[in-house]
C-alpha cells in the first residue's frame, strides 16, 4: 500500500515536484536569512567589542555616564595597580587600558606654519610592548595601506582617507593639538608611520592611532586611561561569564560613593550593540514565525488549487473502500515526505548561498555614508549550527500543518460531495 502511494506521489509533479520546490525555496530563504543575520550579528558584536566596548569595560562611574564626550578629566587613575589586579582576579581574560580623545592633527610646512589640518578621533592603545595583544586584536597589520606599524615612541597611524584628503605623506611630522585631563592645552609632535583602513565607515574618516604611553604623556594622564577593556579568549563573547565578572567586580566598589571609583559594564549593557543584539534575536524569532504562517498559507493554497483534482481522487478512494482516517494519514504522510524533501533541498541551497556570503560578503559601504555606529562595510553571513535545522521548522511545520488543516475537509464533507466537486 505504501509503495502504491509513493508511486502515485512520484508520478504526479503537482503533488511532489512543485510542493518540494515551493518548500525548498522558502526554506532556502529562511536559512539564508538566518545565516545572514547571524553573520551580521557576529560581525557587529566583534567589531564593536574590538573597537569600542570590549566584552566588558571598566570606566569611572562619572565617565560611564557620558562616554560619548570622551571626558578624560573623569578618566580612571591608578591603572598600574588596577590592571594587575584584574589579571590576578580574572586571569582567563585579557585586560587592556585605552585612551580615547579628540583633537586636531596639524601638518606644518617648512617654516612651522600650518599647512593642512583636520579633526581626528584618537585611540591610544598599547602598540609598543613586545607581544602586545592589541596590535593583533585590532588587526593593525592587516589594516595598513601605506607605511608600517609604529615601531618606536612618537609614531602614529592615521586613516588613509584622512591622509589622502589632507594630501600628507608618510614620515611627515604631525602635531596633535588636544586638551589635557586637567583642561590645559596639549600640543605634541608625532611622526606619521603609516595609514590604515578598517573597512568601517566611521573609523575610516579620521582616526588617529597612537601608543598609549605617548598619549598618557601628551594629555598629562600618567597612570590613567579612559577605560580598561576585558576580552575573552578567541574573541567569543560569553554573556553569562561576562555578567558573572561584572557582578564580582562591581561588588567590590559598590559602597564607595566616589564618582571616580571604577564600574564594569558588559557589551550588552552598552546601548549600541546590546540593543542591536536584542533586536536581531527578536527579529529572527518573528521572521521564522511569520514565515511559517506565510508558507502555510501558500502551501495550503496550492493544496486547495489542486484540491478539485484531489477531491475526486479522494472520493474514489473512499468509494472503493479506503477509510477516511487512512486517506487523511496518507495526506499527512505525503506532506511529511514533501516537506522533508523540500527542507533538505532548501537547506542545501541556503547553506550554499550562505557559504558564498560567508566567504565573500556584500559591500554596503554606500549605504553607510552617514552612519555613526560601528558597522562593517562588508557584511558577511555565518553558517551557525542552527542553519542546519532552522529551515525544517517552516519547511516541515508549514507543510504538515497545512495538510493537517486542509485535510479536515475530508471528514467534514459527505463523500458524495467530493465527487460533485469533481464533476462540476
Amino acid at each position, binding site marked *: *500500500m505504501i509503495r*502504491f502511494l509513493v*508511486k*502515485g506521489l512520484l*508520478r*504526479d509533479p503537482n503533488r511532489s515536484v512543485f510542493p518540494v520546490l515551493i518548500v525548498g525555496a522558502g526554506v532556502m530563504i529562511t536559512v539564508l536569512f538566518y545565516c545572514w543575520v547571524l553573520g551580521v550579528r557576529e560581525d557587529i558584536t566583534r567589531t564593536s567589542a574590538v573597537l569600542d566596548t570590549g566584552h566588558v569595560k571598566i570606566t569611572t562611574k562619572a565617565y560611564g555616564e557620558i562616554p560619548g564626550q570622551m571626558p578624560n578629566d573623569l578618566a580612571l587613575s591608578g591603572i598600574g595597580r588596577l590592571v594587575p589586579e584584574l589579571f590576578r582576579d580574572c586571569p582567563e581574560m585579557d585586560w587592556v587600558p585605552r585612551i580615547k580623545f579628540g583633537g586636531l592633527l596639524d601638518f606644518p610646512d617648512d617654516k612651522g606654519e600650518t599647512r593642512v589640518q583636520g579633526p581626528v578621533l584618537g585611540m591610544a592603545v598599547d602598540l609598543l610592548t613586545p607581544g602586545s595583544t592589541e596590535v593583533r586584536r585590532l588587526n593593525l597589520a592587516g589594516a595598513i595601506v601605506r607605511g608600517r606599524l609604529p615601531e618606536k615612541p612618537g609614531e602614529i597611524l592615521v586613516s588613509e582617507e584622512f591622509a589622502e584628503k589632507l594630501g600628507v605623506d608618510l614620515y611627515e611630522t604631525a602635531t596633535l593639538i588636544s586638551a589635557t585631563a586637567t583642561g590645559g592645552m596639549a600640543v605634541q609632535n608625532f611622526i606619521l608611520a603609516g595609514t590604515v583602513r578598517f573597512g568601517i565607515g566611521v573609523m575610516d574618516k579620521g582616526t588617529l592611532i597612537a601608543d598609549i604611553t605617548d598619549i598618557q604623556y601628551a594629555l598629562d594622564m600618567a597612570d590613567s586611561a579612559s577605560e580598561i577593556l576585558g576580552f575573552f579568549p578567541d574573541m567569543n563573547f560569553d554573556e553569562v561569564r561576562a555578567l558573572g565578572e561584572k557582578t564580582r567586580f562591581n561588588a567590590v566598589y559598590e559602597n564607595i560613593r566616589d564618582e571616580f571609583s571604577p564600574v564594569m559594564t558588559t557589551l550588552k549593557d552598552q546601548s549600541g550593540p546590546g540593543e542591536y543584539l536584542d533586536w536581531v534575536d527578536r527579529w529572527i524569532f518573528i521572521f521564522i514565525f511569520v514565515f511559517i504562517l506565510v508558507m502555510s498559507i501558500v502551501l495550503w493554497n496550492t493544496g486547495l488549487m489542486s484540491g478539485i483534482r484531489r477531491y*475526486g*481522487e479522494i*472520493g*474514489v*478512494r*473512499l*468509494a*472503493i*473502500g*479506503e*477509510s*477516511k*482516517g*487512512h486517506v487523511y494519514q496518507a495526506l499527512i504522510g505525503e506532506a511529511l515526505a514533501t516537506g522533508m524533501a523540500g527542507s533538505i533541498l532548501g537547506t542545501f541551497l541556503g547553506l550554499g548561498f550562505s557559504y558564498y556570503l560567508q566567504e565573500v560578503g556584500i559591500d554596503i559601504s554606500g549605504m553607510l555614508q552617514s552612519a555613526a555606529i560601528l558597522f562593517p562595510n562588508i557584511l558577511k553571513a555565518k553558517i551557525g549550527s542552527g542553519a542546519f535545522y532552522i529551515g525544517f521548522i517552516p519547511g516541515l511545520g508549514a507543510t504538515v500543518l497545512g495538510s493537517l488543516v486542509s485535510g479536515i475537509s475530508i*471528514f467534514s464533507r*459527505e*463523500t*458524495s*460531495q467530493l*465527487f460533485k466537486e*469533481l*464533476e462540476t
Partner: protein
Amino acid sequence: MEDQILIATERLVKHYPMGKHLFTALNDITITFKSREFTGLVGPSGSGKTTLLNIIGALDSPTRGLVRVMGQDTGTLSHKQAARLRSIYLGFTFQTYNLLPVYTVYENVEFPLLLLDMAPAQRKKAVLQALEWVGLMDKQKSRPSQLSGGESQRVSIARAMVKAPKIVLADEPTANLDAANSHNILQMMIKLNEELGTTFIFASHDDKVIGYLKRKITLTDGKVVEDARMDLPEGRNTC
C-alpha cells in the same frame, strides 16, 4: 440462497438545503434488493437516482430513514466500518469513470485489493482475471489518459469487479459511450451477473440500458412510481 436480501431501505428521505427551503431529493423510499439482481433505477434527470445510489453505498447519509446493507444499518457505522463495508461488499462505477490518473490500468484495478490486504500472488491473479473479463489484457500498462471512453468504463468495471463483490453500484455506466460500446459494456455486465451472481444496480436514463434490465425501478421527483419485473428482456439473447 436465490432470494437473499442484500439491501433494504426503509422510508428513506433525503433533503438538500436550497436557499431558505429544503429540497426533497428522495421522498419516502422503501425498497429491497436481492442477490443476483440486475436492476435499473430509471427516471428523468434530477429524479434522485444518483442520490439513492450514493446513500446505498454509504457515500452519503439520509436525512431520515434506514438503510441496511448486508444486514448492517449504515446509519450506525463509523467511518471505518463504512469503509470496510464498501471495501468488501460494494463495487462502484461512475459516469465519469473516475480512474486514478497517475496509475496504470493494472494499478487502478489492483487498488481495491491493496485495501483488502490480499497476498501479492493472489492479487495478481485476481487483477488479470478482472482485466480478462473486460477484455483489456493488452492495456495493462496504459495510463487512463491513453484510453478511449469505452475502455475507461471497462477499467472502471474491472476495478469494481476485481474483488468479486456481492453488489456493484453503477451510475450512468453508458452515458458517455456510443451505442456499440454501450451494448458491449452491458453484455459484459450481464455475463458477470449470470456467471458470478453479482447484483448490479444501475442509475440510468439510457434506453439501451433498459433493454437489459431484469427489474426496473422508476423514480420521479424522489419517489418510486413503478417497480417492475422485466420478463424476457430483449437483447439478452443476442450476445
